[in-house]
């Protein structure tokens, strides 16, 4: 969470110097409190891990114990729903990036005046939670002139568009921060003087420089889309979390195993983000799969 690597190093050096100056005072003051801090930490960690252990223990109650997991592998609905969620996630990411990169680029380059309006729109999903968004989407698009919900493909399209909206706050912020770190004015001028058009500038100059920001935004979007339930269930889409939710009535042990798989997927996505953004801020989200 600290800024850059050097910054952390600087703090480390500061701390070391501080300790070498007055070691006895430091140690005396800390010893009783140290126990309390450890107690708080262990209490929190217990709370974090108990539900995972509980879920795992429950999945082993099946007879034989591994059958909850083998049942997953034999369940075509598991693969169908997971595959569907991933495809929806990928399309969401592609639309979100191709919509927001040119917009953020253009706002920085030519339209700084539009910044407050664009930022306002990208922050709206904080204020309009998924349940209200899907309420509005269904109310608007279940009738002519755009009856999206009347067809299967239309409902899926609406689902993707809803997820693109959910991705706005952190995607835009990630892209904008990425753009701030480079001199887009000079890059654009250089590219133009060499004869590049706008499309080429965006794809061959701007996008490669935004690699890290876009990848971590993409993984976050994927994690959120795969876990999202509210919008999908009201649009009657058979996504992964809807499958997981309905599994309980027929196969509770398998359900606990799939819940663990879901947690594992979140881990993988967040692990990639941590790898990509070493030293940079962890992403904080308050939209998505609550």
């Amino acid at each position, binding site marked *: 969470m600290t800024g850059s690597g050097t910054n952390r190093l600087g703090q480390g050096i500061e701390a070391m110097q501080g300790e070498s100056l007055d070691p006895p005072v430091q140690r005396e003051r800390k010893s009783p409190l140290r126990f309390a801090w450890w107690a708080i930490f262990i209490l*929190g960690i217990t709370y974090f891990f108990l539900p995972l252990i509980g879920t795992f223990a429950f999945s082993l109650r099946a007879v034989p114990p591994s059958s909850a997991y083998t049942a997953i592998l034999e369940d075509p609905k598991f693969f169908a729903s997971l595959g569907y969620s991933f495809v929806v996630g990928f399309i969401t990411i592609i639309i979100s990036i191709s919509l927001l990169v040119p917009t953020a680029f253009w706002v920085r380059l030519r339209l700084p005046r539009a910044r407050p309006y664009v930022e306002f729109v990208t922050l709206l999903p904080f204020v309009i939670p998924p349940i209200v968004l899907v309420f509005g989407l269904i109310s608007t698009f279940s009738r002519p002139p755009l009856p999206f919900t009347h067809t299967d493909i239309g409902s899926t399209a609406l689902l993707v568009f809803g997820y693109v909206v959910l991705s706005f706050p952190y995607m835009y912020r990630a892209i904008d921060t990425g753009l701030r770190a480079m001199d887009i004015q000079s890059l654009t001028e250089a590219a133009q003087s060499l004869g590049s058009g706008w499309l080429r500038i965006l794809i061959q100059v701007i996008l490669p420089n935004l690699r890290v920001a876009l990848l971590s935004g993409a993984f976050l979007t994927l994690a959120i889309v795969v876990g999202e339930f509210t919008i999908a269930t009201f649009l009657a889409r058979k996504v992964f979390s809807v499958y997981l939710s309905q599994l309980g009535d027929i196969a509770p042990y398998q359900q606990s195993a799939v819940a663990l798989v879901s*947690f594992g997927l979140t881990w993988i996505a967040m692990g990639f983000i941590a790898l990509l953004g070493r030293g940079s801020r962890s992403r904080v989200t308050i939209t998505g799969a*609550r």
Partner: protein
Amino acid sequence: MTETAFARNAQGAPPARPGRRFSLTWLGLVPFLVFSTLFLLIPTAYLIVGSFVDSTTGDVTLQNYARLTEGLQLNAYLTSIEISLVTALVGGIFGFLMAYAVISGGPRRLRGPLMTFSGVASNFAGIPLALAFVFTIGRTGLVTAFLAGLGINPYDGGFTIYSKIGLEIVYLYFQLPLMILIIAPAIDGLKREWREASENMGATTFQFWRYIALPILMPSLLGSMILLFGNAFGAQATAYQLTGGFINLVTILIGNQLTGDVLHNKGAGYALAMGMVAILGITLLAYQFLQRRSERWLR
């Protein structure tokens, strides 16, 4: 920031055709504006307009908002607000203590792992989260069975996970790590010299916290907790899975209205959604105000 960008634009490179410049420049935003108008602004506007219209007569009315004080709606708001407040406070305080523990207290080496884990846990919500708690402290869950073995079955004492308190325990699972993630930079901003200076002048640890650290941290603490409030207030999937839709939260009630018109009045449903947007709007404004405050010291 904006001013320098303007300055650069003025002297900057290519645009040569002043007549067409204005319209062409704004054209660059058209894809974004069209998309967000269609799938964000129009759906929201639909709800706003609908909330001011009497759905049987079609007249303009404030009646839909007046109905928010009726039993079912009012109860939903109160329950949602209570759960959000409780989890924001408990998650906020305990999250702060945990973050402080790994930054300045005992287990400092565990900071990196805790931050990574918090990133995962704050995104682990909805269906699988509710299930994990059912498997753990549900009627036959692991911890319940363990406690029952000790002769203290919480379900005999009237506890149930499918209740308000149960939901609060579950929500804390994403509230706590979110707090750890957003408060850590503020704790980092507490300068070592402030502590040393106060000690040199003879301040006790209590006095340091009472007169220096807490006043400086207060805007960040409050702001973070407000963010947690909004985080819990908008949650739907977790509560739906845990209680089967039988707990009366605003999000659950909106869902029931969407599928079954439980309020028997479309306009009242739109007003219900708009009340939620209004509360979240105030939440975001308060957060941004406090955020600006906290930057005064912590930079």
